[in-house]
């Protein structure tokens, strides 16, 4: 199955939403909310483009298209079209079309509607890039882009703290997982040397053979589980309900949260079917399924109920993928399809109810059946599918998945029981969502409820009807969508035979009946179940959601504590550390590499030369113990002049003169400054501090002495100086070699040096002439870029 190379149209299809994102605000400015109609054409066309792949893909063909992006690093912008990516691309663009329409109605009149469209399109493009991505790096880029764009979408209602929190939470959780995924991908690339998914899939054992399977598996899982909200990372998903409903309907049906499931499905041929895979995935998936459904039961907010069932569904999908059993995988594909359709529809319904009635709390809703007949119909169809009743696609999915779990030997029973309980609870929620708001007596709602405009009901109707239609033509559905996708999952071409109605009474059918019975029973006890779950959660009193707050709060607090310890504001500490490192740097290598100098011979200095050295030492000691500023200044001068004499002693008159002048000027400036700077020059160092600083100082001095001795005991390469001596007069016309070096041989140093001198003059001028402005707020002044004019002193 070598993929065929196709033209770039598919690449442009991925980029089209990004272009639409640019146009959207403009169109919205012109057409207001009706801009949704022209904008919806974009995903519509993308959908059409991908329908073209359905036929060939169902025959087992695959395609790639690629453009070089960063070829020096092996990164291409490339797509890989097979059953799995086609299914996802169709869901993303298909549901996306209706989400755009729905957003047009839902945010009608909102001042930032254009921006909202933009964000949606950006997200759509990222999602398409993700599911079609062939190059691991470009796949990852789109993966992170979905995190970024969902951050913007979830926080769209930015003035509310809850929205901001949810957005940050989504970013932190999915972004953090993304880093794990990146690490995993980089490991794959460096271990296998391959970067294209299609190539990797061509040799399924390539990762398992590297010996890095475990870290890669864990890191990829880290990405997938956070994105697909597996327990214990599930908490960000319900919180993301703070976003406007179109966002929830899109992100939580077929896109964002399915990205993790997509990744697991995509990597299944590479990472699946190992003991690790078939243990870890069912375990986390199962727990997520049960936790999700139970938490859903507790809610009374329509959107939150749906959000938690989304968590549960994702758990179910992960569990099924985790079995690595072919029939269960088939069930997963079908359930994925069914879930995308009914969940997308139900979210939109919830949003419409909220929009039209002013609330989405099921305890405050009722009897909307007659006021909103079309919405009601759509809600019924979708929740029947969700409940897993015939003749809907949800039913078909459930049959197949039971078949798969039941037939799976290892942990079949546990998985089946988990699935049954989960599905029963799912049925409870489905019933609650469809029945509570619409049936019963009419309840007074904040807004007078009536049917929404076509923009609002087009999506729900279409999606729910599709859910019905796909079930009615089950065989074709299986042939065109499920089979090809399953082929991608198992890594070989599969054709399946799907029926709506079971042909005989078998285990799955019985399990279905048990599920329905259990579900109906639980639904009658919904209120008691709800208070029970509530009581249990109250007893636990902690959840990962609270944990997130503690994490952020904790890390900020810890950072503050640590930073104030490390950067304590005391320059003495800073200096101390730096000189300790200096001492280490000058002492340690010498001792470690054994390059200590030989014991020095007593130099044959003359009497007066010893005298000069002695004066220098005297000056140093005097500076060290100086008690008054006059002695300090004078003794500083003494050591400086002694240095000048040393230069003279070793044949450096230029140096000596300059040192002499510089030292004089230093002393003069010091004296000028010190008359103003009223200092008590006695050193208030307590004995331990004096000892410690003394040790450091001696260590630095000793280290440098040893190094310098070692170097000067080696022979010297005087090539440079010989050259200068030879050509100083002959070519450069100067008899003072030092001066010739300064102005000619190494004149560029001097140019830099005089720049330093000029700058020093200017610095001092800037320091002295500009008068400090009084602080506005005592201490912590806040100098802005647009400061008031400073007073000048002269």
């Amino acid at each position, binding site marked *: 199955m070598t993929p065929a190379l196709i033209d770039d149209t598919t690449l442009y299809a991925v980029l089209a939403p990004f272009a639409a994102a640019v146009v959207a605000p403009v169109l919205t400015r012109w057409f207001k909310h009706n801009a949704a109609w022209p904008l919806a054409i974009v995903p519509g066309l993308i959908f059409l483009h991908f329908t073209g792949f359905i036929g060939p893909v169902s025959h087992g063909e695959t395609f790639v298209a690629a453009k070089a992006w960063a070829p020096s690093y092996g990164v291409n912008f490339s797509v890989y079209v097979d059953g799995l990516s086609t299914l996802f691309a169709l869901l993303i663009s298909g549901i996306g079309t209706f989400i755009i329409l729905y957003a047009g109605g839902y945010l009608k009149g909102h001042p930032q509607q254009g921006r909202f469209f933009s964000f949606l399109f950006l997200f759509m493009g990222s999602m398409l890039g993700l599911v079609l991505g062939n190059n691991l790096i470009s796949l990852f880029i789109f993966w992170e882009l979905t995190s970024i764009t969902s951050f913007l979408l979830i926080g769209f209602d930015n003035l509310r703290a809850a929205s901001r929190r949810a957005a940050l939470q989504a970013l932190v959780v999915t972004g953090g997982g993304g880093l794990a995924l990146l690490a995993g991908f980089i490991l794959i690339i460096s271990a296998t040397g391959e970067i294209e998914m299609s190539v990797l899939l061509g040799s399924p054992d390539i990762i398992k053979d590297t010996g890095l399977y475990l870290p890669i598996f864990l890191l990829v899982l880290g990405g997938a589980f956070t994105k697909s909200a597996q327990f214990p990372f599930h908490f960000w998903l319900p919180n993301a309900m703070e976003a406007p409903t179109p966002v929830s309907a899109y992100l939580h049906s077929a896109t964002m949260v399915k990205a993790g499931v997509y990744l697991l499905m995509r990597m299944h041929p590479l990472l699946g079917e190992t003991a690790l895979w078939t243990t870890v995935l069912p375990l986390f998936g199962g727990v997520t399924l049960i936790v999700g459904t139970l938490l859903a039961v507790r809610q009374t907010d329509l959107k939150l109920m749906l959000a938690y069932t989304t968590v549960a569904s994702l758990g179910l999908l992960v569990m099924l993928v985790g079995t690595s059993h072919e029939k269960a995988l088939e069930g997963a594909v079908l359930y994925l399809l069914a879930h995308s359709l009914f969940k997308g529809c139900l979210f939109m319904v919830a949003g419409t109810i909220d929009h039209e009635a002013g609330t989405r709390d099921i305890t405050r809703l009722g009897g909307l059946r007659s006021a909103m007949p079309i919405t009601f119909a759509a809600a019924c169809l979708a929740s029947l599918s969700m409940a897993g009743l015939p003749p809907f696609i949800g039913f078909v999915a459930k049959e197949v998945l039971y078949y798969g779990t039941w037939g799976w030997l290892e942990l079949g029973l546990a998985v089946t029981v988990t699935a049954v309980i989960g599905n029963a609870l799912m049925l409870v929620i489905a019933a609650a969502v469809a029945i509570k708001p619409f049936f019963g007596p009419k309840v007074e709602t904040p807004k007078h409820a009536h049917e929404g405009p076509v923009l609002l009901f087009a999506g729900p109707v279409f999606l729910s009807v599709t859910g019905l239609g796909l079930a009615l033509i089950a065989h074709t559905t299986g042939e065109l969508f499920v089979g090809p996708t399953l082929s991608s999952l198992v890594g070989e071409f599969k054709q399946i035979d799907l029926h709506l109605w079971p042909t005989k009474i078998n285990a799955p059918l019985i399990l279905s009946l048990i599920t329905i019975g259990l579900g109906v029973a639980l639904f009658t006890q919904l209120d008691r179940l709800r208070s029970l779950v509530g009581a249990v959660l109250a007893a636990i009193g902690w959840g990962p959601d609270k944990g997130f707050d503690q994490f952020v709060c904790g890390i900020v607090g810890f950072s503050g504590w640590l930073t104030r310890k490390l950067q304590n504001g005391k320059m003495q500490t800073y200096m101390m550390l730096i000189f300790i490192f200096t001492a280490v740097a000058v002492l340690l290598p010498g001792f470690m590499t054994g390059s200590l100098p030989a014991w020095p011979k007593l130099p044959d200095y003359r009497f007066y030369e010893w005298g000069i050295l002695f004066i220098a030492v005297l000056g140093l000691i005097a500076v060290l113990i100086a008690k008054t500023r006059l002695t300090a200044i004078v003794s500083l001068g003494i050591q400086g002049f002694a240095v000048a004499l040393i230069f003279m002693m070793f044949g450096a008159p*230029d140096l000596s003169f300059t040192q002499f*002048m510089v030292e004089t000027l230093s002393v003069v400036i010091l004296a000028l400054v010190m*008359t103003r700077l009223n200092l008590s020059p006695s050193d208030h160092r307590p004995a331990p501090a004096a000892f410690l600083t003394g040790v450091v100082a001696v260590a630095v001095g000793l280290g440098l002495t040893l190094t310098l001795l070692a170097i000067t005991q080696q022979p010297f390469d005087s090539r440079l100086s010989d050259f200068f001596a030879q050509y100083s007069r002959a070519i450069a*016309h100067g008899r003072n070699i030092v*001066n010739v070096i300064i102005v000619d041989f190494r*004149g560029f140093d001097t140019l830099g040096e*005089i720049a330093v001198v000029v700058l020093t003059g200017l610095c001092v001028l800037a320091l002295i002439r500009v008068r400090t402005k009084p602080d506005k707020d005592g201490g912590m002044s806040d100098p802005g870029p647009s400061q008031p004019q400073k007073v000048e002193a002269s």
Partner: protein
Amino acid sequence: MRTIIFRTIAPYLSALMVLFSVFVLLRGHNEPGGGFIGGLIAASALAIYGIACGVASVRRAIVFHPMGVSGFGLFMAALAGMLSFFKDQAFMTSQWLIFHVSDVEVALSTPLVFDIGVYLVVVGAIGSIALALEEREAD
């Protein structure tokens, strides 16, 4: 400090020092000396003059702001190295113009111009620092 004697001799002393500094500058290529040391001497001259007769009179005497002089010195030094551009040689390749004026050899060269630039930079910058500090002293 500001005794009458000091104030009287300071201008002459300063003038003498400036003269000496120019001498040191010019002989630098062949004997100990050069732009730096010359500049430092001249800056000291300005400082002494300033202490004796006040900063204002120094400023009047040198016409330009010392930082301007310093900037000009830098400009000149950098330009001096660029002449070689026109001879297709590398930056700072020295150019010499040597001619004889009645037995005295006079050498004009880019290193000399460069050294004068150095001199001006040092006079300007160090002089500016000294004057600024002295001015601070006065108020």
